[in-house]
């Protein structure tokens, strides 16, 4: 099957019902996208499909063939992704860091659609991503910081 991931075309051999998460991680060795729950409950596996934030643990590869997939390894190519990755470092957002790839992917989709999000926008976009270390206040601050950078002065 042909998949388009981070602008590259890749061929994978896996059963049609295999979730994209496991194709990325096990077949392609792209381990930046994380497993957390397998039921779209925690957001650790968030990637973009045609620009939308989706949970790759419940998305079969047959459903994404021919669509544009972006992962944490590629999101830095976009202005939002790059600004978020920089804000994440500047504010020392991560603790253990495991959920942060998914957090950044959700945040990048938010900023692409809503360049200047309110707190309510952030809650709505980010509450599907669990962080057990409790970095939520810094995630919120980093999203706002990245949004400010994306706003022309």
């Amino acid at each position, binding site marked *: 099957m042909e998949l388009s991931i981070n602008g590259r075309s890749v061929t994978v051999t*896996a*059963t049609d*019902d*295999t*979730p994209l998460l*496991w194709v990325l*991680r*096990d*077949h392609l060795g792209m*381990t*930046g*996208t*994380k*497993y*957390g*729950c*397998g*039921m779209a*409950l*925690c957001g*650790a596996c968030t990637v973009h499909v045609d620009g939308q934030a989706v949970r790759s643990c419940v998305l079969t590869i047959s459903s994404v063939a021919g669509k544009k997939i972006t*992962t*944490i*390894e590629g999101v*830095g190519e976009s202005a939002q992704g790059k600004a*978020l*990755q*920089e804000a*994440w*470092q*500047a504010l*020392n957002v*991560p*603790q*253990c*860091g*495991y*959920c*942060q*790839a998914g957090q*950044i992917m959700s945040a990048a989709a938010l900023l692409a659609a809503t360049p200047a999000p309110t*707190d309510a926008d*952030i*809650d*709505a976009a*980010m*509450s*599907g*991503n*669990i*962080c*057990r*270390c*409790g*970095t*939520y*206040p*810094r*995630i*919120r601050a980093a999203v706002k910081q990245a949004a400010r950078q994306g706003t022309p002065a």
Partner: protein
Amino acid sequence: MNARIEPQLPADPSRREFLAHLRSLGALVLVATVPAVLKAEDAPKYGADGMPHGWRDDPLAFIAIADDGTVTILVHRSEMGQGVRTGMPMIVADEMEADWGRVRVQQAPADEEKYGNQDTDGSRSTRHFVDPMRRCGAAARTMLEQAAAASWGVAVGEVKAVNHEVVHERSGRKLGFGALARRAAKLRVPPRESVRLKSPAQFRIIGRDNIRLLDGLDIATGKAQYGIDPWFEGMLYAVIARSPVLGGRVNHFDAAEARKVPGVVEVMEMPAPVAAAQFHPLAGVAVIASDTWAAMKGRNALRISWDDGEHGVYDSETYRAELERAARNPGQVVREAGDFDGAIGKAVRKVEAEYYLPHIAHATMEPPAAVARIVDGRCEVWAPTQAPQVTREDVAKHLGLKFEQVTVHVTLLGGGFGRKSKPDFATEAALLSQKMGGRPVKVTWTRDDDLHHDFFHTVSVERLQAGLDASGKVSAWLHRSVAPTIISIFAPDPRHEAPFELGMGLVNLPYDIPNLRIENPEAIAHTRIGWFRSVSNVPHAFAVQSFVAELAAAAGRDHRDFLLDLIGAPRMIDPTSQHDGWNHGESPQRYPVNTGRLRNVIETVCREAEWGRGMPKGSGLGLAAHYSFLSYVAVVAEVSVNDKGYLQIPRVDVAFDCGPRVNPDRVRSQLEGAVVMGVSLATLGEITFKKGRSQQDNFHQYRVTRMDTAPRDIRVHLVPATDWSVPLGGVGEPGIPPVAPAICNAIFAATGRRIRRLPIREQAAGT
């Protein structure tokens, strides 16, 4: 009257393994009574000295300098979000006068002989290693200075290391660390007592508040490597169906359907542990496949009949009633002072309350996972382990290999919180690799595996009774704590909390109460009990801090004033005088309980949170304070409960005193995280059991705090601390215990409703 303190350990002293594990917790064998004659070698060892393999400070083990001057610092403790992979290098780099921008970090493999103790738990890493790492850096600086002096033919006293180079001021000559590295590395490491440490005023990196995490870029770009991430061509992927009940076994299983799943390579039974659970893998059936998805599908297709064993009866509602019965009857006395019975009889007002805290699960975002392979009889393991040495020992033992034949690479941990101190998952990976001829095998625990087979936080009933005298002062205090003990994973059928559990806010109550008795009735464990961040401090602090608020209300007094009076005058308390023979493994002389510092964090947080400010209807402030892991914490939570009973926690203030701080940003982040995790366990966290089985499968049933319900405004107030003669306190854990009682006390202020059972869930609404 003397307290009757029974030894908490099994009578059989030959259980060296059990004792070794206990020592690895810092739970020094206790110890209520000191033997009359102490031999020198029996003298108690404290701090890092008391840990297996103690500490090391050899710069040749921890520091490498490349020709281009890049300084690589090995970190031997595990990174699980507390920031140790940035903090430890800060200490070493500062003392060696390295330029922080040219410092890299590298993770040490499991090798305590070389690096000293590696157990990353007990909020100990920085506190135990700040001094050895300072000496390590200072010794490296000395060697670089010696190398420069020798190459110039001048006295070493004439040269000085300054920001990544050694300078000879008189001649103006300079040599960079890179140019000096090879020569310095050939020198003898200077004797420890000759090494000159910086004065704290000379620190350039320690204490700096703007240090970026060394792993920040890798984390933000998806390159960071966790235990679930190692990837090899041809690697096999395993998931395991484990006994749903502690001590259960596989009766028989049918793998015919599982083997038909495309990608499934092998199905095999996992051996059952022979005795105590320890950190052994659980009995079960493993499915090995060409990817994780196929392994998961294969597991779903297994048909297994389990023999549940004796714990198949475990039901958390029935068990709660058992704990309540135990708490309503006298139990083993673990501390006594004055005459409680006499004083309670004379009290003008009596208050009683009973609190319940359920099991909770760690639910690290990275579930347990590990990779192993065996090449030429040598086993390599990649694991997100808090206990590298124990992991190596356990893998060697289970595989029948020598310790030297096992290498454990410690990856980043996607959350630890105590779960990953138990390396059962790494042993599983190694066993399966061995069965598959040494091929690399990754074991992944699914989320339901994690929530079904955790080493759960204990469940407890805490019953308190107190009497107030005519002046409104607490004259009598009785606390009965009933909870299954962590010792139950090491020894058959222990019934009482261990010294290290009793010393977590139960016996070491730093209050000025003349008549007090603390009891610990029996409880039996029916599931694996393990350390959860802050451990027994969580139930003890919840009960005590809730109860103090209830007493203040009964006395008609302001909670803050009442609490300060209960603590009494600023003074030093010898922990042994409170029958705390553990004291977090630290010397009672070096680490007395300082009630002045406890008072100070309470006063600080109340000032910063504007305690006493007017609150709108349905809103309230709640206070709690707790001393644990040698640090002092006070919390004020602000809550609102609307007319539908919906609880919000808009703001939490925390005041914290852990003594001097290496990396203040990571201290703050640990406290921010502790508030969120505290909110989560207070409002939502609960694992229940029926027929011996954990009833929560995933995050829809084991709910945790998310962005929309986390406090938006968390204000951390670090008490000024520049005196480096004050020994360091812990940071990772002590923020948790006061959060839940502060929230519940705030709900009382807002609604008049007392919450005595966690989680709060809909109780704020009074239903």
